[in-house]
Structure formats: C-alpha cells, structure tokens
C-alpha cells in the first residue's frame, strides 16, 4: 500500500521530537493570539509568520499549520465565551454557543467544539491523504488553460457562495485582481499602474494588504463600537467541561454531518471554512425535530458548524498542496510562507519533497490531537486573557501586526501600505462590501493572467481552442452554469420588485 508507506514516512517526520515541539508551539501560540477578540486566523498567521523564518521548511510549515488550527480553535473559544467572533466562520458558533455559555453551560459547549473539531480533523486529514496522490497525477495533465479554468470556477463559486450582493462580490474580485497586476509585468518588463513610483514596481505584497484589510479595519470597527467588550464576566462560569450523555447523544450525528459537509466544501476553491459552518448550521436547523431550539442554546448548533469549520480548514489544503492554488486567504499566506522557504507550491512538491508533503499532512492530525489534549485543560488560562481590557489589548495586537509586516523584508513602505490597506478595509466595511472576494481576486489575479496568457499563446489566440480540452470544458461549463443559475433568479426577482414598487 502506497498510502500506508506515505503516511508512515509522514509520521516519522511529524512525530520527531523537534517537529512535535514546533507543532505544539504553533498550536499554543495560535490559540493564544486567536483567542484575542477580533483577531481571525489570517491576522494570526500573518502576525506569527516571522517566528517561522529561522526554521527549516518542514518545521516552519508544521508550525504554521499548528498556528492555523490553534487560531481557529481560539476563535471559537472567544465566540462562545464573549460573543465576539474573531472571524466570519465563528459567527454561527456565537448563536448557540454563547447562549449556552449564558445558561452556565460554557464548559460543555467548549468541550463539544473541541471534540467535534478533533473528529472532523481526523477524518479530513485522512481524506487529504487519500485524495492528494490521485489529484497530483491528475494535475500533471493540467496545462495553463486548465489552471485558468479551475481558478475561474473558484472565483465564480466564491461569488455564488458570498453573503450579500453577488454584484458587489464581482466588483470586489475584479478590484482585487486589478491590484494584483500593479507593478512590473514579467512578460514585457513594462511598469503597470505604478505612476513612476519605485515602491510600486514590485507590486503589492499579500501580507500587508491582508493585514490591513482584515486586521486593522477590524480593530478600528471594534473601537468604533465603543469598548467592544462584554459587560458580563463569563470566565467564572466555566465550571465543568464534561458534556452530559444527552449532549453527546445529540451532538454525535451533528458532528458526523458537519464533518462530511465541511470536508466537501473545503476542497472547493473559493469556498472557505466560513461557508462550511454556515451550511452546517442551516442543515442542522432544517433537519432538527424542533428548529425553534436553535439560537436558544442547542448543542447541535455548536457541534455541527465547529466540525464543518475544522474539516473545511483541513481539506482546503488539498488544492494548495496538489495544485499550488490557494483557495482562500489562509492558504495564500501558506503559499507565501512556502515561497519564503524556497519551495514553489504545485504538483511537483509531492514528488520532489515527499518528506515535507506527508510530514505536513500527518502533522495536521498531530496538531488536532494536541489541541484537544493540551488546550482543553488550558481553557482557564485562555479565558483569563479575555479579562484583559480591550484598551490594553489592541495596542499590543496592532504592534504585533506592524512587526509582522515589517519583518517580512525590513521595508518601511510595507508598513505604510498596511496602514493604507486598513483605510481601504474600513471603506469596504462602510459600503457593505465583503473583503473575502477582494482578497481571493488579489491572490488569484496575477496567477490567472499568467496562465491565460500562456494558454492563449499555445492556442494561437483562439479562445475556442481552450474549450477543446475536456477538463477545461467541464470546469468552464460549470462556471457558466453557476453564473446563469445566479443571474436568472436575480433578474426575475428584480422584475417582481419593480412591479411591487
């Protein structure tokens, strides 16, 4: 069995003393930062990126993966205890998780979230291991046209699944794509939209833009909402962690469903773990015997989304590891981190660096196990952190952001860009535009241009030839169908609304 041999190789890497330590440090630090209100996984990873610079590539990636799970786990802790979602995927956890906490059942809510995440993590890791090898061989048949078509499908999916207006999501993707093309054009050497400034010749980097749009604007909006702190101290209400038998019985099927849903949704490029948790919550509510319990502290409403969220986080590694395509902002950061370590992501990683590839996959499981074994008993410590007033906390958060950005290449202009991106992110908030599609467009924009250019060169400028490849035809056909399925009801609705007015 190839799979077993590969997993054994991965285990030998991931279970070495050194890498276990990195995994532990990563998940602890990730939780530590992720618990802070208003700090999601993207900001956490970007902040902690500098601590991995001095490590070997394998250790660095294992630590980053640990930071990612830790951050997500920390985010749900904050969501349950103080009703402040660190990122969009924890919003649904707030609904029932925080209600449970107010009913004095914070312990079981936290425990179920951790158990659900662990079960989901185990299953999803296995899926990643099983699916990766065949996908890599499929990826060998991928030319530039196929890559372009796949990324198109990813962008279309992110529009279809986006909350709020699809038109605005399209606008945000296009704007992100445009920004990603600023700088020197690699094919011709021409400077695009730099307006003669030297600082822009290299284009905009991902970390400062993501940090500003996600991190800074979040802090500003927290400050705007007043102190942004809860009045009640729920920290003292975490008594027992143990869920009752009834809790377990109610949660088990929800965990299973959430895991499956998240595993599938996580693979889709453009669908983030946020969509997985939203979908799971909707599903649980729909099939529940008594849907009115949801929002009143139904434990399935915590178990399902938390499992889906974590499974999705895990399987979103699949497109990144096998194709080198980031399906969300976190994976874009991972790709950035790999590049810093001198690894070019793509199908060749599995062949050329099997130890790294399988080591990272096995470490996903290790990281999840660590979160349950170590973090669960430490909940009391994380909770203390939440008692620190926000006015003392946010300067520290901001300082970490600034150091993280500056340490990338000791370039002051990057920090200035972060400040500007913070302003932009706040503007997006005020005009009701989701930042996620913007970042996806920003991440995929230059990759798509590169692939489209090469594809058109190969086909001698004939766009029809692109569809002649069956993979391309399927991917682009699916994209077109999705767009139609979205636009047609929109037009119909528009007519109705006009008639009403």
């Amino acid at each position: 069995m190839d799979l077993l041999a590969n997993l054994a190789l991965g285990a030998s890497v991931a279970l070495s003393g050194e890498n276990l330590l990195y995994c532990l440090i990563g998940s602890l630090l990730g939780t530590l930062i992720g618990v802070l209100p208003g700090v999601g996984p993207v900001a956490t990873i970007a902040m902690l990126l500098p601590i991995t610079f001095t490590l070997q590539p394998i250790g660095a990636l294992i630590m980053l993966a640990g930071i990612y799970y830790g951050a997500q786990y920390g985010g749900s802790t904050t969501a349950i205890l103080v009703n402040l979602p660190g990122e969009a995927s924890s919003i649904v956890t707030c609904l029932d998780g925080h209600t449970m906490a107010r009913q004095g059942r914070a312990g079981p809510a936290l425990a179920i979230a951790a158990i659900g995440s662990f079960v989901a993590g185990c299953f999803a890791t296995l899926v990643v291991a099983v699916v990766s090898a065949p996908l890599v061989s499929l990826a060998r048949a991928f030319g530039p046209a196929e890559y372009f078509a796949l990324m198109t499908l990813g962008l279309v999916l992110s529009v279809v699944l986006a909350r709020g207006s699809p038109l605005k999501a399209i606008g945000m993707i296009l704007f992100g794509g445009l920004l990603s093309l600023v700088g020197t054009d690699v094919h011709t050497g021409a400077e695009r939209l730099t307006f003669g400034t030297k600082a822009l010749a290299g284009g905009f980097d991902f970390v400062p833009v993501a940090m500003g749009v996600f991190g800074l604007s979040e802090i500003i909006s927290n400050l705007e909402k007043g102190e942004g702190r809860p009045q009640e101290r729920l920290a003292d209400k975490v008594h027992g962690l143990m869920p009752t038998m009834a809790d377990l019985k109610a949660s088990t099927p929800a965990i299973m469903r959430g895991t499956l849903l998240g595993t599938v949704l996580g693979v889709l490029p453009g669908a983030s773990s946020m969509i997985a948790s939203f979908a799971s919550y909707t599903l649980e509510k729909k099939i529940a015997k008594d849907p009115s319990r949801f929002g009143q502290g139904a434990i399935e409403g915590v178990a399902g989304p938390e499992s889906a969220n974590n499974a999705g986080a895990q399987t979103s590694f699949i497109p990144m590891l096998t194709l080198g395509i980031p399906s969300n902002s976190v994976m874009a950061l991972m790709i950035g981190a790999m590049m810093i370590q001198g690894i070019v992501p793509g199908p060749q990683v599995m062949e050329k660096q099997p130890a790294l590839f399988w080591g990272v996959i096995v470490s996903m499981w290790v990281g999840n196990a660590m979160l349950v074994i170590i973090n669960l008993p430490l909940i009391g410590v994380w909770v203390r952190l939440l008692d620190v007033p926000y006015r003392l906390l946010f300067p520290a958060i901001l300082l970490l952001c600034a150091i993280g950005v500056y340490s990338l290449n000791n370039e002051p202009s990057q920090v200035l860009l972060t400040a500007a991106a913070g302003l932009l992110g706040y503007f997006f908030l005020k005009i009701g535009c989701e930042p996620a599609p913007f970042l996806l467009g920003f991440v995929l924009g230059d990759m798509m241009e590169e692939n489209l250019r090469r594809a058109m060169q190969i086909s001698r400028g004939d766009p029809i030839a692109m569809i002649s490849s069956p993979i391309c035809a399927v991917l682009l056909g699916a994209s077109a169908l999705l767009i139609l399925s979205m636009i047609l009801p929109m037009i119909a609705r528009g007519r109705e609304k006009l008639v009403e007015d």
Partner: protein
Amino acid sequence: MVQIRSPQDFVAGLFFLAAGAFALYGMADLRMGTAMRMGPAYIPSLISWGLIVTGAVIAVRALVFSGPRLERWALTPLLLICGGTAAFGLIIPQLGLFLASVAITAVVSFGSKGMPLRQIAVLGLALGAAAVGLFGGLLGLPMRLWPW
C-alpha cells in the same frame, strides 16, 4: 425624479466605476497586444472594463432598489490606528524597534477615551521592552532595535 435609494450600493458602484476608469487612464500609453501575444495592458484593461460595467450596474440598481444608508465614519480611531501604524513604519528604520513600539502604542492609545497618560506611558514602555526581548533577543530577527 432620480433618487438614490441605496446609498451604500451607490457609493460602492461609483467606487468600482472610478477604479476602472482610473486604471484605464493610468495604462493609456501601455501596449494592448493581441490575444495571442498579450501586451502589458491587455488583461488589466479587460478587468478595468469589467469594473466599469459592474460599477455602473450596481450604481444604477441603487437608484431603483432601496438598501442600507451610509453610516458615519468613526474618524478618530481610523486616523489613530492607520496613523500609528504608519508612524511605526517611519520610525523603525532610523530609531529602532523599541521607540517605534512606544510610538505606535502612544498614538493609538489616545484613541481610547479615559486612558490616563501614565498608563499609556507604562503600556508603551512594557510593549516596547517585550517586543525588543521577543523579536530582537529570542527570535533574533535582523532589525534595528535601538537608535544607536
């Protein structure tokens, strides 16, 4: 009479429209090339036109369908957070991590009302020391720590 029924969407539409138009203007002297040999302006121009069309549709729809109003901007935190971050970037190359950390803390702390000056000073010094100890000492990141 034309009436803006969805101010948020209207501004968003105008923003996309303006961004596309501005990009087209900025790329006016770049080569388009052909579909087979795309010049530097080919794809960015396509995207810009996409932005213009999307923005126009959003703006026009905002005249027809009603939607959320524009909220006020919280200018103080906005300026302090972005300004503090910018100050950090400007200070660190010359004066080092410690003073840059103190500066960013001091600037942004003015944003939270009722924070006494002494508390700001203590917080700034503590964060500065922690940053130098952690990133300079423990992790050994190659950056200037002190002004000298």
